[in-house]
């Protein structure tokens, strides 16, 4: 701490703090314009001029660090004159069009001039002409209003790490824009530049001319797109969500957002929303009342229970619902219906990671912090295009790497994050397990493992050694394309880490043997001592925002709330006691088992919340067929989906913007969301629907509000924690050699000669799930999907940019536009899973995981040719 004097007041501040910040701490406001607490000091606008004793001329407070005995004056006629002068300079070419500027009311320049003058400019020469460009799909650029604070340029570079913007030309000719001053930003569209611009030079097309800032209501909540769980506020007026804003220091995201969070909100007010319950009369869905709809559902459910038993009913819920929704759903299914046939979107792959983690850490709650990622010294990022799938987690990785952390990236394609990597390992698709086993092998055989751990877990490590011995580095290189040297280098770096972090994504969790691979990665953590110590982490990424919650609340046949084992009488007892009703003992069905059950005629009724299997499953699959075979289908959703069309009853649910509750992000952090607007139309929050149904089913679950449910959840989870078990890792390392061997099995997939290309479906930055497709922002940026293909492959097939490719296999054929990119390796194709048309998904087959019954349908082998358009 140092002592200084500001305006005759003695102020204490940490040594080296910026004078602006020290003054602020002492309650003294120094006006600033180019300064922003999130950015490095810049000193471009000279508005923060202050007098510091013993220094010549006025000094910029935003670039001056405090020191002992500094004597500072921030208010004097001299300073007032300087400020006024600087503002007149800033306004030299300004159009003074505040009445029609979107920033009016929250413009820092307007406020400064209002406070310090001068409203008058002496400059009388010709006004410089600046770029006014409204061609970008989202961001309008009106540089006549720009004050050249470079906050946009700096945030894009320093915080986002994208460095898309620059200041070009010089002096009074300076302009702001992307490469070559282009019209289209063509970037990640995180919107940070728009948010940080102090004036109306960069504005969002989506918000433009909608409202003045003081007319909107602000509600803090959590993003509903991905598992990062970013915090932001919805600004609303008269039931319309108008924009998303953030505070720079708040939430895991510290004010940053990705494009989905920032610009993906308008699905909430989309006119296509379901606004009333619908029932099928003959073949058409007709609106009805809640009372009638719930009556019908309860009646049909009761009849089915009577005739076929409760296990003839099953339910599937999305990971976009709140914990309260999901908790009540599984309680409804288990108690009001009486079945464990419950599953969620986590079955598409996230369940693999969580089951493996639970296997290793036991009843302890799984937590991993994104701060640990940002502060790591070594990060191993495996099989994820992280900056696209979970952009804010990606930002933390970028930040760590920029700070000097060793970043090792392994993926089947060249990803954006790799440009910050010290090792960018492009592994062949399908060889992920060879790669991970190679790492384990290198750690053990080269003696990189933790020597202390070896003392404790000698048997375990020896067993592993025996198992990986059979796999040679030569074979690993053949399969993965990664040399022995590179594998050893990666293994060494990770082993030597003090704060080692492993991040893994869909390429592991949503692929064959995802559970086993997750365990293998956990082994890697255990033997290198990177599992329990502070600052280390293993983090599976999840793409739906509350997949963690879906599992923790117990929306899975194998898990009760708090990850208790639904198969264990002891565990069922714990929760039955709190619920005061017995949980059925019969083992429930997972998602693929549910669909098989329907085909076999065992499952008669399905209750689907927020999922759209008819629109996402490959049409040639048995699962798709199963949907047509149901006696009774209930769909609860925001939008009329393809599955709704097959339903007997459709219930309109409220979106995240209309409800209270909590979401649990990938870190295991439960965060509150708050209703910003009233439910759209006659929609209701999901939990209220379950509550209403439960009453009609004769098992009333009555809660005043979401908070009351949360209280019960807290009680249940506390109940689980009291279970108390010894260190679970101690148990895990006792895994027998035989079992371990099974965990280290590898199955090779071979492309059939006729279909030599591997096609993968996956998430992309601008879309996630179906909600983004109903939002203007993401649709404007990316209206349609494109098939990514390697330039050499394209060359060979005679395909050029703008062409369509014809994909074929036994399941059918699809035409799709291509994007030629050397990010894709030869032989691999990628298509964004979000787009339902053209139905590329129909080429895929459904694979079911042996261990967890996770169902995958994101890949296929195909033949490709150039599509010749007919004339």
């Amino acid at each position, binding site marked *: 701490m140092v002592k200084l004097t500001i305006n005759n007041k003695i102020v204490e501040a940490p040594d080296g703090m910026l004078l602006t910040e020290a003054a602020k701490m002492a309650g003294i406001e120094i006006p600033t314009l180019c300064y922003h607490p999130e950015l490095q000091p810049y000193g471009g606008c000279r508005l923060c001029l202050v007098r510091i004793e013993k220094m010549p001329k006025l000094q910029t407070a935003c670039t001056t660090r405090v020191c002992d005995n500094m004597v500072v004056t921030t208010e004097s006629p001299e300073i007032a004159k300087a400020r006024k002068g600087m503002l007149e300079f800033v306004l030299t070419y300004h159009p003074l069009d505040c009445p029609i500027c979107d920033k009016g009311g929250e413009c820092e320049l307007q406020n400064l001039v209002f406070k310090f003058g001068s409203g008058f400019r002496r400059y009388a020469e010709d006004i410089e002409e600046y770029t006014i460009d409204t061609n970008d799909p989202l961001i309008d650029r009106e540089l006549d209003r720009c004050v050249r604070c470079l906050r946009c340029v700096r945030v894009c570079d320093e915080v986002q790490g994208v460095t898309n913007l*620059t200041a*070009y030309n010089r002096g009074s000719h300076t302009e702001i824009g992307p*490469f070559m001053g282009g019209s289209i930003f063509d970037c990640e569209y995180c919107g940070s530049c728009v948010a940080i611009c102090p004036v109306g030079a960069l504005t969002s097309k989506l918000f433009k001319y909608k409202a003045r800032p003081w007319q909107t209501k602000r509600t803090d909540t959590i993003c509903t797109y991905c598992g990062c769980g970013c915090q932001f506020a919805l600004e609303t007026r008269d039931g319309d969500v108008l924009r998303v804003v953030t505070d720079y220091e708040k939430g895991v995201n510290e004010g940053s957002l990705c494009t989905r969070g920032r610009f993906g909100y308008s699905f909430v007010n989309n006119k296509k929303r379901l606004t009333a319950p619908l029932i099928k009369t003959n073949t058409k869905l007709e609106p009805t009342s809640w009372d009638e709809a719930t009556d019908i559902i309860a009646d049909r459910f009761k009849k089915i229970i009577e005739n076929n038993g409760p296990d003839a009913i099953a339910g599937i819920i999305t990971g976009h619902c709140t914990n309260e929704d999901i908790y009540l759903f599984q309680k409804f299914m288990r108690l009001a219906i009486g079945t464990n046939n419950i599953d969620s979107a986590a079955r598409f792959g996230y369940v693999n990671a969580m089951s493996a983690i639970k296997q290793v850490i036991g009843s302890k709650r799984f937590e991993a912090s994104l701060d640990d990622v940002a502060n790591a010294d070594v990060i191993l990022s495996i099989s994820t295009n992280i900056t696209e799938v979970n952009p804010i987690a990606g930002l933390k990785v970028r930040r760590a790497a920029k700070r000097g952390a060793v970043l090792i990236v392994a993926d089947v394609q060249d990803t954006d994050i790799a440009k910050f990597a010290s090792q960018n390992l492009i592994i062949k698709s399908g060889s992920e397990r060879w790669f991970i086993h190679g790492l384990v092998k290198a750690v053990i055989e080269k003696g990189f493992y933790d020597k202390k751990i070896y003392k404790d877990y000698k048997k375990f490590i020896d067993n592993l050694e025996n198992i990986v011995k059979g796999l040679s580095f030569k074979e690993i290189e053949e399969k993965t394309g990664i040399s022995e040297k590179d594998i050893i280098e990666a293994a060494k770096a990770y082993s030597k880490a003090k704060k080692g972090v492993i991040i893994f994504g869909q390429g592991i969790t949503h692929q064959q043997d995802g559970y086993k691979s997750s365990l293998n990665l956990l082994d890697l953590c255990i033997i290198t001592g990177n599992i329990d110590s502070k600052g280390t982490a293993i983090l599976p990424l999840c793409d739906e925002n509350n997949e963690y919650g879906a599992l923790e609340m117990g929306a899975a046949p194998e898990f009760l709330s708090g990850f208790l084992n639904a198969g264990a009488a002891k565990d069922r007892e714990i929760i039955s006691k709190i619920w005061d009703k017995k949980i059925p003992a019969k083992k429930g069905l997972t998602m693929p088992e549910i669909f098989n059950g329907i085909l076999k005629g065992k499952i008669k009724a399905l209750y689907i919340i927020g999922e759209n299997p008819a629109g996402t499953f490959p049409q040639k699959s048995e699962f798709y067929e199963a949907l047509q075979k149901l006696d009774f289908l209930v769909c609860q959703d925001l939008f009329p989906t393809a599955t709704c069309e097959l339903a007997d009853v459709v219930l309109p649910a409220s979106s995240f913007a209309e409800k209270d509750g909590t979401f649990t992000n990938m870190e295991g952090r439960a965060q509150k969301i708050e209703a910003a607007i009233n439910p759209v139309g006659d929609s209701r929050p999901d939990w209220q629907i379950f509550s209403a149904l439960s009453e009609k089913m004769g098992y009333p679950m009555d809660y005043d509000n979401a908070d009351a449910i949360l209280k019960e959840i807290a009680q249940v989870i506390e109940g689980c924690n009291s279970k108390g078990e010894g260190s679970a890792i101690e148990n895990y390392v006792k895994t027998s050699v035989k079992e371990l061997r099974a965990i280290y099995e590898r199955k090779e997939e071979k492309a059939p000669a006729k279909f030599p290309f591997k096609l993968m479906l996956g998430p992309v930055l601008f879309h996630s799930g179906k909600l983004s497709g109903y939002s203007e922002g993401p649709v404007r940026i990316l209206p349609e999907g494109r098939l990514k293909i390697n*330039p050499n492959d394209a060359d060979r097939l005679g395909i050029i940019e703008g062409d369509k490719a014809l994909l074929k296999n036994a399941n059918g054929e699809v035409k799709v536009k291509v994007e030629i990119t050397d990010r894709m390796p030869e032989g691999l194709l990628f298509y964004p899973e979000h787009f339902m048309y053209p139905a590329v998904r129909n080429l895929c087959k459904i694979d079911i995981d042996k261990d967890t019954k996770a169902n995958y349908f994101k890949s296929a082998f195909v033949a490709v040719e150039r599509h010749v358009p007919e004339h």
Partner: protein
Amino acid sequence: MEDTNIEKKGYAFSKEGMNILKEMMKDYPSSDALLLPALYIAQEEFGHLDSGALQYVADVLKVPRSKVFGVATYYTMYKTKPTGKHLVQVCTNLSCSLLGADHILKYLENKLGIKVGETTHDKKFTLITVECLGSCGTAPMMQVNDTYYENLTEEGIDRILEGLK
């Protein structure tokens, strides 16, 4: 260091250019710092710095291309547009102006038949104005490509241009 994709598009440093850059790399703390010499080499080799050249420099140095663009447009000695064989740069700063830079400029415009910022049809001459070139003592002056011509008069200009043909 060479990126095959870019080469296809016709932008690649010559061996000598690349060697100079590699040599310099040893003396510079980061590749950002190499931006100025790299742009200079690019200008020498490609004639001027268009988007392809800037992208090439960005790829070679692994510096974001927006930064390269920002730097290239900041310094007037980098040419982002094609110029004639001879770039005639007339100083119009204080000393030169006092000693008739205005007149010199008009004379050049008339003689070459182009306005400031333009290039002659035969692509021989491009005429631009620049700020003080530090040759005030011999004002008025102009620089053609890398050569200074001082104490300019009409006859002097005639002679100089003649010599350049």
